[in-house]
């Protein structure tokens, strides 16, 4: 890693060596994260760096590590686990073997075996991880196995037992998810190719079924709901029986993989205009010398790349932490409109005007839009097959609404979110600028009645008391 400019981020990345793999790092169980196809489209110098300057791959590895040695980039809003503390009374001199730790108010000093390592996040010893020989919870004195190289100062940040959550998440993820979603979260595990729809590739940082508004990421709550209840109508199973802390750890790990993928994509985007294989071929064809291009690349990597990485990290941090705030949450301004034949009729009218094009007049998901050939996103050509494509280049059929299976959940609020905010990463658009909240509720009422229609548009005779808001709506 180049020093100077890259220093800040480096110091805040803490290695979490997986205790599992310690001592058997060359075992057959070793796995690694793969890089995206976009990274592979760059010239080798941009991928792997040049003249000691980090390229995309090293940038990513330095901040995220590999499955056996995960790294915690503290900038990111991920709970890696562990308790934060600060160094107390300054130990004097070099070769410090004993330190006093202080905890913020409200954090209880961990006891006994929980304190197996201390990682220095800030100060002169930053980046060091020291094994703890003995720990006295009362005084907060940690005796280290071996002396530190740097000398910590009072107030330096440390993490005790860091990485527990993410490490646990990794183990559970490998066991339950990786055969579909892949070790790197690329949606290409060994069973993936037999599934339709395909398992999600997290690396775009896009999730379809969320309760956040159309420009926000998925919240932790959204991911945890998906895990608990599965995605009906697809191969994504329910993991309801996992314990809460297990679900929590898996969610953090999924977010970690998503952010890793997004970070990589952001770096590549920065480089691909000038340094993709295709672009370099074009430039050399028009007379630029390859050596000149490489020189420019070296300069860019030396001077700007760390900043690029840092601001990419900031963007990620901002976006992912916002998703967990209330502002990001979809909040209808009116409650669900009572489910009545009038409401459904209104819903049907709106449906025919805006939805039937994709979902079909009778809701079977066979509207005329499904037969067109779409343009490829970054080429001047058409997709080879007809249909609506999603973010990942897969054909997604508009849902067959006559079946009453809703992948993102069947609560009225779930359907409200789908329609008001769209389904992220797919062609299902957000209608919040088109319809009032009230109208969206009319459509929700109509959509929920489609499976029970005798004929398209003929409202079913009886209406079950589906909503306690309007018990009078029954018949």
């Amino acid at each position, binding site marked *: 890693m180049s020093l100077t400019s890259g220093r800040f981020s480096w110091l805040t990345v803490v290695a979490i060596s997986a205790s599992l793999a310690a001592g058997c790092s060359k075992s057959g169980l070793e796995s690694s994260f793969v890089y995206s196809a976009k990274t592979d489209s760059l010239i080798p110098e941009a991928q792997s760096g040049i003249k000691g300057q980090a390229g995309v791959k090293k940038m990513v590895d330095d901040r995220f590590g590999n499955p056996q040695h995960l790294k915690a980039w503290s900038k990111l809003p991920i709970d890696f686990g562990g308790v934060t503390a600060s160094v107390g009374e300054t130990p004097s001199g070099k070769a410090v073997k004993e330190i006093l730790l202080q905890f913020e108010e409200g954090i209880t000093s961990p006891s006994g075996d929980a304190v197996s390592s201390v990682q220095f996040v800030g100060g002169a010893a930053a980046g060091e991880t020291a094994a703890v020989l003995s720990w006295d919870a009362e005084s907060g004195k940690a005796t280290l196995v071996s002396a530190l190289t740097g000398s910590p100062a009072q107030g330096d940040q440390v993490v005790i037992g860091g990485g527990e959550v993410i490490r646990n998440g990794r183990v559970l993820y490998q066991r339950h998810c990786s055969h579909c979603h892949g070790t790197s979260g690329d949606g290409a595990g060994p069973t993936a190719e037999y599934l339709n729809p395909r398992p999600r590739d997290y690396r775009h940082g896009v999730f379809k079924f969320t*309760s956040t508004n159309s420009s926000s990421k998925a919240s932790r709550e959204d991911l945890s709901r998906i895990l608990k209840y599965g995605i009906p109508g697809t191969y994504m199973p329910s993991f309801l029986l996992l314990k809460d802390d297990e679900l929590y750890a898996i969610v953090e790990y999924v977010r970690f993989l998503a952010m890793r993928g997004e970070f990589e994509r952001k770096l590549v985007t920065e480089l691909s205009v000038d340094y993709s294989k295709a672009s370099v071929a074009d430039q050399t064809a028009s007379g630029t010398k390859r050596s000149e291009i490489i020189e420019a690349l070296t300069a860019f990597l030396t001077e700007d790349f760390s900043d690029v990485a840092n601001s990419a990290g900031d963007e990620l941090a901002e976006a992912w932490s916002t998703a967990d705030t209330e502002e990001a949450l979809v909040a209808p301004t009116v409650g669900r409109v009572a489910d009545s034949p009038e409401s459904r009729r209104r819903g049907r009218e709106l449906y025919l005007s805006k939805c039937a094009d994709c979902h079909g007049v009778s809701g079977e998901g066979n509207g005329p839009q499904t037969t067109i050939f779409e343009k490829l996103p970054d080429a001047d050509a058409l997709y080879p097959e007809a249909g609506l494509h999603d973010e990942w280049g897969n054909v997604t059929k508009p849902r067959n609404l006559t079946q009453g299976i809703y992948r993102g959940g069947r609560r009225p609020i779930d359907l409200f979110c789908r329609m008001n905010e769209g389904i992220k990463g797919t062609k299902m658009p957000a209608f919040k600028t088109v319809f009032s909240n009230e109208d969206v509720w009319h459509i929700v009422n109509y959509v929920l009645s489609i499976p029970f229609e005798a004929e398209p548009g003929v409202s079913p005779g009886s209406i079950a008391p589906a909503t306690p808001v309007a018990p009078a709506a029954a018949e």
Partner: protein
Amino acid sequence: MKKFWAIFFWFWPVVALVLCVMAPSQGWWFPGPPGTQMGERIQGLFELILGIVTVTFIGTNFALGWVLWQAASKGDDKKAFYSHGSHSLELIWTIVPAFVLLFIALYQMDVWAEYRVQSFYPEETKQGSVAEFMARQFEWRVRYPAIGETLKDEAQPGDLYMVNELHVPAGRPVKINLRTQDVQHAFFAPQLRLKQDAVPGLIIPVWFDVPKAGNYDVTCAELCGWGHYKMKARIVVESQQAVDAYMRKLQEEQTEDGFVEEAAEEE
């Protein structure tokens, strides 16, 4: 050395005897004591069959050992005795097992009837099923009727949905409709000693009466695909009040419209 094999074959019946006595009495390899009265009767049948099998195994192995011992004790000059083709022997080992099987078939009939034949089901289950338990690659989808309604075979607008978890009241017989959406699966609740295949196209009623509140496992007992092992679910048995409260909670969740009064006032 020749006698080694005789002793070898006599050794196993002794092991079998120890295991077949210890396993049911000490509960080795059993998923706990049977959780239901029906389970106890099924356990009884199981033990009976285990007994018969143990006796048969011990008998045949002792006989095998005895034959070997006999032959080993004789001098090399004795000619072997061929029993092959003996009509009476054939008759014996056909008729004796046939009677044993016939006995088992007759003996288990009342348990079978109560467990599987609908007209013998307890009265309480005849009002309908509490839920539909739908197997699917690779999970169990549960559908309850709306509160106060009865379960229909077809989905109804007010139905309540859950996955991998079934709540039923303790202390009274309840019935569920076992179905599958795709391939064949099998509903297996080991602690309740219940096992029933789910067959595509059929709605199979399964009843049980669990006296003790608690969580009971469900797994799939029919190799149904690569994700077979994932098909774990649980039956939560609790008081009727707790079940009612659970249903209300489900209904509340499933009618959630995300509307918060304050949020609107701020507008």
